[in-house]
């Protein structure tokens, strides 16, 4: 064991204290997660009912008679008093029964599963690609901040933050699809991922769009965290104890720098997921976002509730995973209980 490792151990504290607090923290955090989910469901229910309009309208056209309107309202249950609707909503939710769509009459869970097969790969691939771009460039921008290319990376990333994501999408389509004819401009194959080749090519431009935009802000965080590490006492100490600069940076700097970045990444991943809504529209992808937009237009309550409930769950889970990862990476946080870092 070299000197710097000994030093790191002193900071982390005794090893046997590691597992129990993490377990307790996880449990506490899970309770909070379930509670947040319940609150989100109630808020959702209320907000949806506050919107003007009626879900029965989506089933009807101009020319419908009074009797037809009444029958449509009875079919979707919008003629019931709010408290009756609320009780059935909560009791179904407790059984994880998201119901069937008013309009398409398809099972909401099944449909969400179908849509997630587009949105999840899009989010995850976009996020990973953004990380691959942002981490090395962010570190270079910090370490070489005095060089012209370090400054250039900084400036370009600032520009990236300012550009709206749909605009990047349109630019990429115009370049790669319309002018160069290299990639499809949008849409998703009828057979989905069973047609792996076409499905993958359909994903390239959307993933590229997300990763370009997301990497710009991520790069800023990585750069800031790295700059902080560079100016830290422990890095200087590690250097003094004989580590080379890259060795010190990788062994001590990365882990320390990662702590603030991870909590930001949790938020970024969640916003990548939500940003996929916009991207799905630009590229006409059959994901969760396009399902949600249509469901809102039609006041298709089961679909809206289902999508928002699952999205909330995913976002909460991402936050949960980020907090947990942060505690694994940084032992100092483990004793601090359930509060946000």
């Amino acid at each position, binding site marked *: 064991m070299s000197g710097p490792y000994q030093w790191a151990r002193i900071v982390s504290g005794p090893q046997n204290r590691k597992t129990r607090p993490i377990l307790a923290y996880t449990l506490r955090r899970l309770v909070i997660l379930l509670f947040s989910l319940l609150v989100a469901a109630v808020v959702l229910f209320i907000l949806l009912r506050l919107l003007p*309009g009626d879900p029965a309208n989506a089933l009807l056209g101009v020319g419908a008679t009074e009797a037809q309107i009444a029958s449509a309202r009875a079919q979707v249950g919008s003629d019931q008093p709010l408290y009756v609707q609320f009780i059935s909503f909560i009791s179904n939710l407790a059984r994880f029964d998201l119901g069937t769509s008013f309009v398409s009459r398809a099972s909401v869970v099944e449909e969400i599963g179908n849509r997630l097969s587009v949105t999840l790969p899009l989010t995850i691939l976009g996020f990973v690609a953004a990380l691959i771009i942002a981490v090395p460039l962010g570190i270079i921008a910090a370490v070489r901040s005095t060089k012209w290319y370090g400054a250039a990376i900084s400036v370009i990333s600032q520009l990236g933050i300012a550009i709206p994501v749909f605009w990047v999408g349109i630019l990429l389509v115009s370049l790669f699809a319309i002018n160069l004819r290299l990639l499809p401009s949008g849409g998703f194959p*009828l057979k989905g991922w069973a047609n792996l080749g076409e499905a993958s090519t359909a994903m390239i431009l959307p993933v590229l769009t997300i990763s370009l935009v997301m990497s710009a802000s991520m790069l800023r965080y990585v750069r800031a965290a790295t700059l902080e590490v560079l100016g830290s006492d422990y890095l200087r100490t590690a250097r003094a104890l004989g580590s080379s600069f890259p060795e010190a940076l990788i062994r001590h700097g990365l882990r320390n720098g990662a702590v603030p970045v991870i909590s930001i990444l949790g938020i970024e991943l969640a916003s990548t997921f939500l940003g996929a809504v916009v991207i799905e529209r630009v590229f006409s992808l059959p994901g969760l976002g396009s399902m949600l937009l249509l469901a809102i237009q039609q006041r298709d309550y089961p679909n809206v509730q289902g999508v928002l409930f699952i999205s909330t769950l995913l976002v909460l889970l991402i936050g949960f995973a980020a907090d947990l990862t942060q505690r694994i990476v940084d032992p100092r946080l483990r004793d601090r209980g359930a509060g946000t870092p």
Partner: protein
Amino acid sequence: MSLISRRNLLVATLLASAAFSPLAFAQDYDADATIRIGSLYEPQNLDNTAGAGQGINEAFNGNVYEALFQLTDAGTVEPKLSADYKVSEDGLTYTFTLKDGVTFHSGEPLTAADVKYSIERVTAETSKSSRKKSLSTITSIETPDDKTVVITLSARSISLPYNLSYVWIVNDKAADITATEDGTGPYKLEEWRRGSALSLARFDGYWGDKPTNGEVVYQYFTDATALNNALLTNAVDVITSVQSPDSLAQFTGNSAYTVTEGASTTKEILAYNDRVAPFDNVKVRKALARAVDKAKLLNSIWGDYGTLIGSFVPPTDPWYVDLTGVDAYNPDSAKELLTEAGYPDGFEFTIDTPDYDPHPLVAQFLQSEFAKVGVKANINIITANEWYTKVYQEKNFQATLQEHVNHRDIVFYGNPDFYWGYNNPEVVKLIAGAESAGSVDEQTAKLTEANKIIAEDAASNWLYLYPQIVVSASNVTGYPVNGLNSQFFAYGIQKAK
């Protein structure tokens, strides 16, 4: 076919019917080709009586399902599954004989029981079909044998064959058709991925002429630009209905694409609530009609496309007459009429405006036109769903913008309970009388008369008729150009080898 202006509508229709003939390109097309159709109108389910939206007509009418009669792309009503029919002297009993050799996609033969079942699906208590009302005179459907259907009516109904063209004939053993189908059409449903695409494969057991292609894929887009890009990148072969004239520049004057303008039935109107002041005053309505430069409005929205209309009736309805001169643009006379009506200083009112194109733009244009004659219009943007509750059901509005897509829908003016509340006993009588007319000529005469009266009354402010623009790759021909009632018959489409 190249770009066809609205002045050459007739030419477009003639060319289209030529293209429709299977003989025209008999040697040159690929009989097994896959035709990829790009559209913005994805059906929400597969049942046209359960809120599936206009997309289901586009994909399934005539392609997957057939009816006793068919509304053709030219606007005529032709027999389809009905081989022959007789009407009793009093006009109350229709006896239909069904075509021989027709089978459903499931292999079951077509019988009279299927027809009875299918009509009752539309007239049923729980039916959401907008056609339910027009079939309300049916009192009984009998099936004396497998090939004969006898429909008895409570009152004469000259449009019965026309109304039956909207009734899909479904196998009576098919319980739920919201996600599957069992029709008699030239295509059967192959696969449907919600939010993405729907494919139809040629049905080998079809009773009639075989389609001139092997497969049709409707590819759905949520964004008009994405749809246009798909055609530009050869991801689709044809776009069913272009909704923005700006995008047409990419296709016109390019020999790789064909742009056609057909006759649409979609009317953009400013409907007043004729029950409430000041719109219960015909002079006010006429004044507001004269205050709007509709040619300028149409041009600003659609450029050289689209058609001006002087009433609710488009040129493809048999009772069309050119009424654009009745309340032609004349702001000075609009001001005079307002003074005569007791509003020398104008008045203020609110236009409930659906939040989607082109309504907000149209509302702004109207606002500035009305301001020139001293009338202040406020714009209240609402969603389509809210429109249905507030305007259509509760009739709680002063004026509203809406696009009315249906063919032959002047009958709405004969219903004083309709959302716009136009109530002229003479028109009510004419429209009811037209339905119980003894001949098509009598029906046409009565509706023409009603048409002239609603125009004189300025019952609503009819702004313009949308163009129906189809763009295709130039190697694809034979598609319908008019798209009446949103139909898009795919069986005549040919793709050059």
